[in-house]
């Protein structure tokens, strides 16, 4: 027994003797130790211990070094036993009477060897199984921690909706820790509101293996969240559903923004409808004005003229002047109505924008005001003008108004000079100017120039309805441009108009 301790000693219980040489060395050493112990025992007059000692050496060798070194140990043990402990001593001769002992020894050694090698094989297999298991555990642990890395909400529940996995994203979104969530019924924990009966969702999930939809849930702190939820069904080898993996994305903010946009759109639609209605009303109003307001005027003028014709011989000078006044006022009223209607049409009409060559347009406009220039001495200076992007007929009307104004307010000059040209403006716009040497205006009243019915001169000096420049401004504004003027009393005026040269989406 003491011998076995000695044999175990050489630090072999922990370390595997894998090297073949070490295995054979073990065989030799263990047999040598057994022999030494046996001889020691013999010298101490202890008999019959050598046989188990050698068996022990064989067993130790087989156990640690495997069957082949074991065979060596058996052979060495047999030889040592034969040499030292069987008659005749110190020879390798075996007496026939001792032979069964050797046979038993060898057989016994082989039994030990076979048990040992079997055990080693089992141990080997076990180790392998353990290693595999360890690898798998490591892999799973890694996967689980990977799922925890994402901020997406992921959890797994069994077929009874009990939560079996809860990642960091789930904790971040819902506020429940994994410890709190595990084992809870997910729909109860999160107070899930489904967009359709849960049975329909379940049957869809079982049929297709997946389901997607938007769900309302409640956080640990009681706040509501809307999530885009995806469910995937997990089945075992027998195709039985075992778990549901649910991935949720927080879309509360998006839904809120969508709602806001919807509300804004509805508001806008309502306003557009209202605006359209107003526009229609306005149009009907203008239509009615142009029909019904002009008719009585026409009648007034008509009958007054007839009266003038039929009765002027019996009327005195004063009465004839009264009739002339009636006619003048009625005609002025007619002009006002026409101008107002034209002005309102500009506000209502759709703009049809194309590239418009200003040079050509200016020539047309100058031609149009020709009747007003008859008998006048006018020096026209028309510079090079660019092409702009706008509604041709509207721009034409604006130019006619401006040029007609220039002609009108230079009437008092012996020599009239009107210059039309282009000056530098901002990028993407052309600035057109119309300069005259007429009566000009006081810059103090510059802001009144473009107002409807605003006039800076008495009607008897310069006729007009006070709508022309308002029309110009409205046209320019509808093009996204600006209009302004510079002037000095008695020293002429310059009107500036900026118009986009490129198509702009802002107007």
């Amino acid at each position, binding site marked *: 027994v003491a011998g076995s301790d000695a044999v175990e000693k050489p630090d072999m219980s922990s370390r595997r003797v894998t090297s073949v040489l070490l295995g054979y060395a073990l065989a030799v050493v263990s047999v040598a130790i057994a022999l030494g112990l046996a001889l020691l025992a013999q010298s101490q007059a202890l008999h019959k211990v050598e046989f188990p000692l050698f068996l022990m050496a064989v067993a130790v060798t087989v156990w640690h070094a495997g069957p082949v070194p074991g065979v060596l140990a058996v052979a060495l043990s047999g030889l040592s036993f034969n040499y030292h402990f069987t008659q005749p001593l110190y020879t390798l001769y075996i007496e026939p009477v001792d032979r069964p002992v050797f046979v038993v020894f060898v057989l016994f050694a082989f039994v030990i060897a076979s048990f040992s090698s079997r055990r080693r094989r089992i141990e080997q297999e076990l180790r392998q199984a353990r290693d595999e298991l360890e690898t798998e555990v490591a892999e799973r642990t890694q996967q689980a921690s990977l799922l925890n890395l994402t901020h997406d909400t992921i959890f797994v529940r069994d077929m009874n909706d009990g939560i079996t996995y809860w990642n960091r994203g789930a904790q971040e979104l819902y506020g429940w820790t994994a410890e709190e969530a595990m084992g809870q019924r997910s729909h109860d924990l999160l107070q899930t509101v489904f967009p359709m009966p849960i049975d329909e969702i379940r049957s869809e999930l079982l049929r297709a293996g997946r389901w997607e939809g938007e769900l309302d849930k409640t956080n640990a702190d009681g706040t509501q969240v809307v999530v885009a939820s995806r469910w995937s069904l997990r089945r075992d080898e027998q195709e039985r559903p075992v778990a549901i993996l649910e991935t949720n994305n927080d879309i509360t903010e998006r839904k809120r923004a969508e709602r806001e946009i919807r509300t804004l759109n509805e508001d806008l639609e309502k306003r557009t409808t209202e605006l359209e209605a107003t526009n229609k009303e306005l149009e009907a109003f203008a*239509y009615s004005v*142009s*029909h*019904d307001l*002009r*008719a009585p*005027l*026409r*009648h007034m*003028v*008509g*009958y*007054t*003229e*007839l009266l003038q014709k039929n009765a002027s011989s019996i009327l005195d000078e004063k009465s004839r002047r009264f009739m002339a006044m009636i006619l003048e006022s*009625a*005609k002025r009223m*007619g002009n006002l109505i*026409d101008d107002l*209607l034209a002005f309102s*049409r500009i506000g209502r009409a759709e703009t049809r924008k194309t590239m418009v060559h200003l040079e050509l347009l200016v020539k047309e406009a100058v031609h149009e005001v020709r009747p007003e220039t008859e008998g006048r001495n006018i020096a026209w200076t028309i510079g090079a003008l660019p092409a702009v992007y706008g509604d041709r007929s509207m721009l034409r009307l604006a130019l006619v108004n401006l040029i007609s104004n220039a002609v009108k307010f230079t009437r008092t000059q012996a020599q009239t000079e009107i210059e039309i040209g282009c000056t530098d403006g901002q990028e993407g716009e052309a600035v057109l100017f119309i300069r005259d040497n007429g009566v000009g205006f006081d810059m103090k009243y510059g802001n009144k120039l473009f107002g409807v019915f605003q006039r800076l001169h008495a009607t008897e000096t310069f006729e007009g309805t006070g709508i022309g420049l308002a029309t110009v401004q409205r046209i320019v504004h509808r093009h996204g441009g600006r209009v302004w003027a510079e002037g000095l009393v008695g020293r002429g005026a310059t009107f500036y108009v900026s118009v986009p040269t490129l198509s702009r989406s802002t107007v």
Partner: protein
Amino acid sequence: MSPLGRILLVEDDPKDVELTLIALAEYNLANEVVVTRDGAEALDYLYCRGSFTTRTNENPAVLLLDLKLPKVDGLEVLQQIKSDENLRMIPVVVLTSSHEERDMVASYRLGVNAYVVKPVDFHEFVNAIKELGIFWAVINEPPPGSVRRNALG
């Protein structure tokens, strides 16, 4: 004197009727003017029905048509005339107070022969009526089946 065609005036406003007739009379064109006061009456005349069942079945040489009319408005009358095989050849002149572009576009689409905006100034109005009357009732050769008589005076 050249023969005058019959003028059918469709106008609801009595003052406009009077002024138009005066203008036509100034140039001796008023002898053969039939006045109807709304679109329905005008169509009755053209189809010889209602109070016009007994009239001789001849088309007018020209039709002066106001647009804003009671019952059946001018554009409807125009559409009816231009879509009728027997009436479509009658020259139709729209005579209106309105400068409205959509009325003009609609009228020309329906096949109007002329579109005149009544001027506020009576002189201009008389001139316009005169020219219209002379052109359509005198110069223009009306289609077959229209009334044309020798002018009086």
